[in-house]
């Protein structure tokens, strides 16, 4: 949890990946005490077990090491829980919450607790009046419920949720130190004639360490025993809140003790939970894609490139023209979201209870199978000039098709993905029927993705329900329809730039019709309509890549996998190249959305992109805080929000960056390999670059950098793919700059800029672009 709180950090507005959260710089010094404590604890105990315990177990009984082992285990367990458990962080308040409080709102609000007046102070960082016993920790930058203190030895706040573990840690550590010291003393007393041996020396050293730490630890334990008996927190004791007065929070000594030791574990706020689950799922996806699909793809593509080169050329030319279909219409998406919301509950609870490692992948697997079929069909179609071109169509449409096919797919981006993901994860605890979505990124797209019922249902789902179902049937139908259309359009016209930009537009304008034919005229207008979608798209791309990887995996298992892969790889490469150049801020967007989805610790947000907009660097807010005025200075916060991009957690950016850079290198390598393999054809390059379709958009983004080389080689070779790719990258590169500033501002303008925020059941908020 300390890590989470740190990462949650400042999150408000999305900031570019390179910018570290200004208010939460990485401070390695924070980790020194906890590292030292861990080292001493584990090191000393290990030495004790290795050097002292063998003789003790022989001399006295085997119970001695067992007892020490159990005690040490208890110490470790409580230490870990105290360190990693969320202390009871309050999520940042949504900006709606304080709308009724204006500049004249007081800094303090008084509430009567058992006849005693208690003041609740306004927290300018978290944007609410701090509940009684809540305090804002400046180290963690969170308001913590029942705040006790910030313990540097565990590098975590001690609050309502983990006070018990901290207290038990202290108790057990005292007992453990006493045991180690006592048994070490016993050993030394029996070996007074052999004190120069290694065993004795180590035992004496361990005794010294134990003795050294015993005094402060025992003192702290005694102090907390008194606090528990009196029903006070360290914060209250140290600040002297109830000095000479009456403590309104005490229930008597016995009840206070039983409350600390016997009460049920308090829940953590959903948004924090969602964040962790999001990060975990996301990182698992990335790892899975990298470790599993990359070598497979490489093999398959090499294989395919070595196959019929003529077919490869033909496919490439088609791929240049056949861009992914634009995402589905928003109206179609909307019902899907609504329906998916209902499905949230069941899948939320199931999601939480069984912690699926990669729900998103599971979701997209059935969808992916359809491209396989399509690819096969495409091969035949092309050869036979049939109207069926599903395979080819589906290949580039993997990203775009997700949207039409699944509604929550990539094209939907923030709208679908976010609601789906966040909801399932976050809503699990209370989901039952309440559909607690928690904080997701933007909206909670997780449930839509990972709803097991939807995933398993597969076919038969309507377009709207395909958001969550990702049914193979749906995808197949849609892709077939679109591919047949696209095939016709391909046959009829082939202006490469237009087609190239189609992919860009389809990526950036999820609201565009999935009809491929209509995509062509939609190009230029679509491109200009992208202000809102790009962030959405950027967010969706990682899931798109996950989808792609899933589909690719399914595809590979198809009977005609090899030929399919042969066809698909060049297209995908080309498609990816285009999309990479056209999707500039996927990592920051993804990070932003990840940030949004979780933590309150640093974001003032609830369910949507509002938090990023809302939060500001706490330093600024606190410095401007009402220290000088009796009233909350609300105005100082708001203007800062848009200008100062609240820092975001460092976690997502590094992940994305490292992946992107390494993927770019890998993509380039692969491209070169494919190029060599199909050197004679000259068309291999078209698909060669950045072939990793399933990889994230980050990779795609960096593929644009590698495009320089492939493109030049392409153009030098004068192959067909080069012409479409060249203008595409040219046209999309300028566009690259556009979404970046737009992204940072998009959360603020999202509501006004054609994106509708709708709160669903349980407060799930969906942002639906209209």
């Amino acid at each position, binding site marked *: 949890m300390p890590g989470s709180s740190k990462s949650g950090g400042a999150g408000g507005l999305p900031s570019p990946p390179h910018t570290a959260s200004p208010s939460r710089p990485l401070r390695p010094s924070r980790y020194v005490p906890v590292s030292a404590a861990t080292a001493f604890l584990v090191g000393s105990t290990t030495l004790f077990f290795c050097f002292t315990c063998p003789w003790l177990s022989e001399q006295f009984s085997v119970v001695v090491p067992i007892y020490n082992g159990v005690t040490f285990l208890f110490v470790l367990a409580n230490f870990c829980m105290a360190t990693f458990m969320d202390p009871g962080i309050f999520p940042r*308040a949504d900006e709606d*919450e304080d*709308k009724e409080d204006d500049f004249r709102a007081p800094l303090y609000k008084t509430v009567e607790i058992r006849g005693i007046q208690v003041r609740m102070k306004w927290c300018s960082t978290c944007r*609410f009046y701090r509940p009684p016993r809540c305090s804002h920790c400046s180290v963690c930058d969170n308001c913590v419920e029942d705040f006790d203190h910030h313990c540097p030895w565990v590098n975590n706040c001690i609050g309502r949720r983990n006070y018990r573990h901290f207290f038990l840690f202290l108790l057990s550590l005292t007992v453990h130190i006493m045991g180690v010291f006592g048994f070490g003393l016993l050993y030394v007393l029996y070996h007074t004639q052999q004190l120069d041996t290694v065993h004795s020396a180590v035992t004496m050293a361990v005794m010294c360490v134990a003795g050294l730490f015993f005094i402060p630890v025992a003192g702290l334990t005694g102090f907390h025993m008194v606090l528990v008996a009196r029903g006070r927190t360290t914060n209250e004791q140290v600040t002297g809140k109830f000095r000479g007065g009456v403590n309104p929070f005490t229930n008597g000594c016995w009840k206070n003790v039983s409350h600390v030791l016997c009460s*049920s*574990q308090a829940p953590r*706020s959903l948004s924090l939970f969602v964040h962790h689950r999001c990060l975990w799922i996301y990182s698992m996806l990335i790892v899975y894609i990298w470790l599993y699909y990359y070598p497979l793809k490489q093999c398959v593509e090499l294989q395919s490139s070595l196959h019929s080169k003529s077919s490869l050329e033909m496919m490439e030319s088609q791929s240049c023209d056949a861009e992914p279909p634009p995402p589905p219409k928003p109206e179609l998406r909307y019902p899907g979201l609504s329906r998916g919301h209902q499905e949230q509950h069941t899948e939320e609870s199931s999601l939480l209870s069984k912690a699926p490692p990669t729900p998103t992948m599971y979701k997209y697997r059935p969808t992916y199978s359809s491209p396989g079929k399509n690819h096969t069909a495409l091969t035949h179609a092309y050869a036979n000039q049939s109207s069926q071109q599903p395979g080819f169509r589906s290949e580039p449409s993997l990203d775009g098709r997700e949207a039409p096919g699944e509604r929550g797919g990539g094209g939907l981006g923030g709208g679908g993905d976010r609601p789906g993901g966040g909801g399932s994860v976050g809503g699990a605890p209370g989901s039952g029927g309440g559909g607690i979505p928690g904080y997701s990124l933007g909206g909670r797209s997780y449930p839509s993705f990972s709803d097991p019922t939807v995933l398993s249902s597969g076919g038969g789902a309507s377009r709207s329900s395909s958001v969550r179902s990702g049914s193979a049937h749906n995808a197949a139908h849609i892709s077939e329809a679109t591919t047949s259309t696209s095939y016709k359009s391909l046959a009829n016209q082939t202006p490469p730039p237009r087609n190239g930009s189609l992919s860009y537009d389809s990526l950036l304008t999820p609201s565009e019709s999935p009809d491929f034919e209509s995509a062509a005229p939609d190009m230029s207008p679509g491109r200009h309509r992208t202000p809102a979608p790009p962030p959405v798209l950027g967010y969706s791309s990682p899931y798109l890549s996950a989808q792609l990887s899933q589909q690719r995996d399914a595809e590979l298992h198809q009977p005609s996998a090899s030929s399919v892969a042969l066809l698909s790889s060049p297209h995908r490469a080309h498609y990816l190249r285009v999309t990479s150049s056209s999707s500039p801020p996927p990592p920051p967007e993804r990070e932003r959305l990840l940030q949004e989805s979780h933590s309150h610790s640093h974001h003032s947000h609830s369910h949507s992109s509002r938090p990023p907009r809302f939060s500001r660097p706490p330093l600024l807010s606190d410095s401007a805080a009402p220290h000088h005025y009796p009233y909350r200075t609300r105005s100082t916060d708001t203007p800062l929000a848009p200008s100062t991009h609240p820092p975001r957690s460092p976690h997502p950016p590094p992940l994305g960056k490292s992946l992107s850079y390494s993927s770019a290198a890998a993509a380039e390598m692969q491209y070169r390999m494919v190029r060599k393999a199909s050197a004679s054809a000259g068309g291999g390059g078209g698909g060669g670059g950045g072939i990793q379709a399933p990889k994230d958009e980050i990779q795609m983004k960096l593929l644009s950098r590698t495009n320089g080389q492939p493109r030049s080689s392409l153009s030098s070779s004068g192959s067909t793919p080069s012409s479409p790719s060249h203008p595409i990258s040219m046209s999309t590169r300028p566009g690259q700059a556009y979404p970046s500033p737009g992204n940072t501002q998009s959360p603020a303008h999202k509501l006004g800029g054609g994106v509708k925020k709708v709160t669903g*059941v*349980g*407060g799930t908020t969906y942002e639906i672009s209209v």
Partner: protein
Amino acid sequence: MATEFHNLQELRHSASLANKVFLQRDYSDGTTCRFQTKFPSELESRIERPLFEDTVKRLNTYYAEAEKMGGQSYLEGCLACATAYLIFLCMETRYEKVLKKIGRYIQEQNEKIYAPRGLLITDPIERGMRVIEISIYEDRGSSGSCSGSSSTSGSSAR
């Protein structure tokens, strides 16, 4: 004016968020989780007072049940200690079970009572158990003066 919505989907499709009401915590008995049953003025024209109070009281009893220190929570604690807290990986705590029940209850209340009246209750867990958020929706078709922005005052809801 009372707007009729057949279900929550319709609510979301045709309604725009007009206002949000926040029910604050009731700290009169310490830090145990209780919410004020004071009837907000913005809801006067939207929902009947007994229904609203019944909902909040029911929620309060659920939360009191969750935080009750009884045999079950004690055994849970002992079991957790004995297994070095690994039991939490498999088992749901008592609080979480009650939270699920609360979530289901809120969902049911929303569908039966609040959504037909253009209201939506948000589970307090999303706000860190600090407030119960009740969103007031205006029917887009029926009211032209409704505002989707939450910054407007409650009067716009009428």
